[in-house]
């Protein structure tokens, strides 16, 4: 049920416990207070957001979108992929399943990379479950404006790389 990351975190936790025991002050009270405060802000929202995310993913027309991302879709395809990424307010299971649907329907690698990048940066579930409760609206606004061009840049760079690979394959061997 748990992956490597979980056990890595467990090890980190054990190390921190030892360090905290050695600290000269009673630090566990401060830690517990912070724990309860963050848990209270996160869990009820997470409950609702997860339910909403499941329904949104069900409603997303993945097959229809994938038709707009194929060879020759160019910059327009990247924009559509960017917007599609905004519309997936759910975790990696759903995002990568949709990405697989796109690949199967013939979407270009650049469009799929733009889609995954856009979802990674703007996935609404993470914004609502974690970013707004823990960092507030001002930070979320600053971050989102700062990363706005990033998915498109990733798509353009990926297009360039696939061009180079294609040219090498055509001319090289």
């Amino acid at each position, binding site marked *: *049920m748990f992956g490597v990351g979980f056990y*890595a975190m467990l090890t980190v936790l054990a190390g921190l416990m030892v*360090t905290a025991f*050695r600290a000269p002050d009673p630090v566990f009270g401060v830690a517990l207070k*912070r724990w309860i405060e963050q848990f209270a802000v996160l869990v009820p929202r997470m409950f*609702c957001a997860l339910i909403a995310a499941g*329904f949104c993913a069900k409603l997303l027309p993945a097959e229809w979108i994938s038709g707009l991302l194929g060879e020759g879709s160019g910059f327009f395809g990247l924009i559509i992929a960017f917007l599609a990424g905004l519309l997936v307010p759910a975790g990696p299971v759903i995002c990568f399943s949709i990405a697989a649907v796109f690949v199967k329907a013939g979407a270009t690698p650049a469009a799929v990379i733009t889609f995954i990048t856009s979802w*990674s940066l703007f996935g609404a579930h993470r914004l609502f479950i974690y970013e707004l409760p823990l960092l507030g609206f001002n930070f979320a606004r600053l971050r989102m404006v700062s*990363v706005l061009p990033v998915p498109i840049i990733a798509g353009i760079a*990926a297009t360039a790389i696939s061009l180079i690979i294609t040219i090498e394959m055509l001319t090289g061997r």
Partner: protein
Amino acid sequence: MADQQKPQDTQHSRQRANEIATISGTSGGAGSGFEFLGNSAWWLDILSAAFGRGFFGFMAFAILVSIVCYLIYGMAAVQAVLIEDMTLLVNMMPRLVLALSVASLLWVVLPRDRMARLVGKESGLRGLIIAAVAGTITPGGPSSAYALLAILAAAKADRGALVAYITAWALLGFQRILIWDMPFMGAEFSMVRFVVSMPLPILAGLIARHIPIRFDTSQLPKGVR
């Protein structure tokens, strides 16, 4: 071991002791640190933070999309989605509890002032690179990454570094790539995605430093500052 503390740690622990005194309401700072548990005003605050406007907004939205889903796909689909969501939630709980435990212990154990200097206002490009590398190697899912980000933000880290950290975690995080990108998309695709994304957290950090959007510690939510 405790009496071998270096001098700069003394200042660090004094700052910690003050913090404990403030939250537990004692003036001398001598208490056990758990006094807040008996404070009913604090529990009320917690309750109103937990079930505030954000919560009800989400609930309304969840109900709305579930109705749309029911109208289009029928009751069976709604049930299937709900069961899937509940499984996901149950699976996430242990991870969240663990991530929050790590984050809250880090909050009391880490020398936050020194850490903030490493990625602070004067840290330049080096600070952005450190933040991006830290984001790439942070283990765990969003609960640990965002909890760490909140710690860095409260420690007055530079806003460019904050954006670089979370962007690097989102785009380059090793764990995500190993668990999701590789199995779903294949090694070659994942490598292309990793390579094209490598400079992007730094770029985002530079943009964050230069755009005129105000952000400072006072704008963080109450429980995080």
